[in-house]
């Protein structure tokens, strides 16, 4: 049993490293993205092996749903930009002026077999990129191998330490929940979580501020299959999201996993039939996107005046408060992820 698991671990690690290597060495961006999606899948299995089902849940929702869709839609946008006509006649419409592109022709740096694969998908010509230049290859290789060796030597000599696990286990009864990670995230170290929500909000605002011309194209749905699948998957996704939110108090799950699942469901809906979707009311959208951080902050401030300190809550009220905060956080994370995917404000907002 142990030997079988050990073999499994070795194969998994070899697969992870191989996929990461091929992904970063790729000259075809689409191939790199598919390899990165595969990398996320293998990573989720690695988290399972490290006894971290919470992380695996988040990785599953983010890796399988959100990152893949985000990268693919970005490729589409890039392809659109690269293929469009250039009006500025002063500008050189030649391929990207890679400062070291001349080195790409050096022997050993040329990709093998990629030319055929690129030719097969002529529409993707904009999605290929120059291979890494031959110059400086050995320096970076030596530096990174040395760094990895240093890290590994540090790890090998490190003493085993139980960490904070006993401390957390000792204080579980005052946290209001029965799951260690939720207790840490929303009670013991709630600062981190508040700042994390602020960070998600900032990323959403940043993407929003880049303008509105990046809207998703409203394409007609080809045939009845996709809407039918969405009709089946969407209710299940919503129930799963709420289930994960609820499960977070006593088992793997919580606001982030639930938010990621709901966000991925929202991305699926916006992909399936964007032209049928009414544009959301901008005010409601703003309230939804900020709800998590604001609710968290408000309850934290209430803790300052009525309770012991900022961002702390009395243990008898902890469970309902944590549930309220988590609900707000789920909503905000889901909405922000969808907003990040769609990119740009709703066209209706400015008119």
């Amino acid at each position, binding site marked *: 049993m142990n030997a079988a698991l050990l073999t499994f671990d070795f194969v998994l690690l070899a697969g992870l490293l191989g996929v990461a290597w091929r992904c970063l060495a790729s000259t075809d961006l689409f191939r790199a993205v598919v390899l990165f999606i595969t990398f996320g899948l293998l990573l989720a299995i690695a988290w*399972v092996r490290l006894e971290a089902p919470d992380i695996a*849940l988040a990785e599953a929702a983010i890796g399988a749903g959100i990152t893949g869709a985000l990268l693919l839609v970005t490729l589409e946008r890039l392809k659109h930009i690269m293929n*469009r006509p*250039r009006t500025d006649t002063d500008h050189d419409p030649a391929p990207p002026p890679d400062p070291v592109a001349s080195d790409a022709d050096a022997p050993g740096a040329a990709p093998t077999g990629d030319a055929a694969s690129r030719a097969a998908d002529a529409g993707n010509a904009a999605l290929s990129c120059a291979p890494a230049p031959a110059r400086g290859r050995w320096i970076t290789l030596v530096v990174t191998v040395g760094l990895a060796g240093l890290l590994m030597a540090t790890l090998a000599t490190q003493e085993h330490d139980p960490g904070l696990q006993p401390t957390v286990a000792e204080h579980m009864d005052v946290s209001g929940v029965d799951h260690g990670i939720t207790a840490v995230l929303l009670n013991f170290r709630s600062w981190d979580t508040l700042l994390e929500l602020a960070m998600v909000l900032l990323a959403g605002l940043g993407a929003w501020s880049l303008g509105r011309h990046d809207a998703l194209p409203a394409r007609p749905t080809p045939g009845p299959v996709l809407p039918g699948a969405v009709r089946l998957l969407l209710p299940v996704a919503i129930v799963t999201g709420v289930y994960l939110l609820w499960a977070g108090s006593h088992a*793997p799950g919580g606001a982030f996993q639930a938010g990621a699942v709901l966000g991925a469901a929202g991305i699926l809906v916006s992909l399936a039939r964007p032209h049928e979707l009414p544009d959301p009311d901008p005010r409601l959208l703003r309230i939804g996107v900020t709800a998590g951080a604001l609710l968290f902050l408000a309850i934290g401030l209430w803790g300052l005046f009525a309770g012991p300190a900022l961002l702390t809550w009395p243990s008898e009220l902890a469970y309902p408060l944590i549930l309220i905060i988590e609900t707000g956080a789920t909503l905000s994370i889901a909405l922000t992820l969808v907003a990040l995917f769609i990119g740009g404000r709703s066209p209706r907002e400015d008119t």
Partner: protein
Amino acid sequence: MNLLLVAAAGFLLLTILFGLIRVLRGPGSGDRMLTAQLFGTSGVGILLLLGFALDQPALVDVALVFALLAVVAAVAFVRQHGLPEPAGTPMHENPVEEQPHDPPHNPPEDTHDR
């Protein structure tokens, strides 16, 4: 029993690694996307088998999330990556195409009837 389940999970992992050959070779992006889809199914299988072998029922939830969201990437691929765009979609309202003096460089999508 558990040994069998772990070995089965390892076997599925190996099928993923062999399937990578198809991702690397292509030739089309459709092939690559299909392979990613197959990997999703194998991943669900691995998670279920490990969940039972290691007695961690939470892994079934992870597999559920995977199964639920497996279709998102494929739909993103098809919807964004290559379906011919009808004229008049918001993306076409980019100002560059309003310049009439550059006909040879019109993107292929513009050959559709308005």
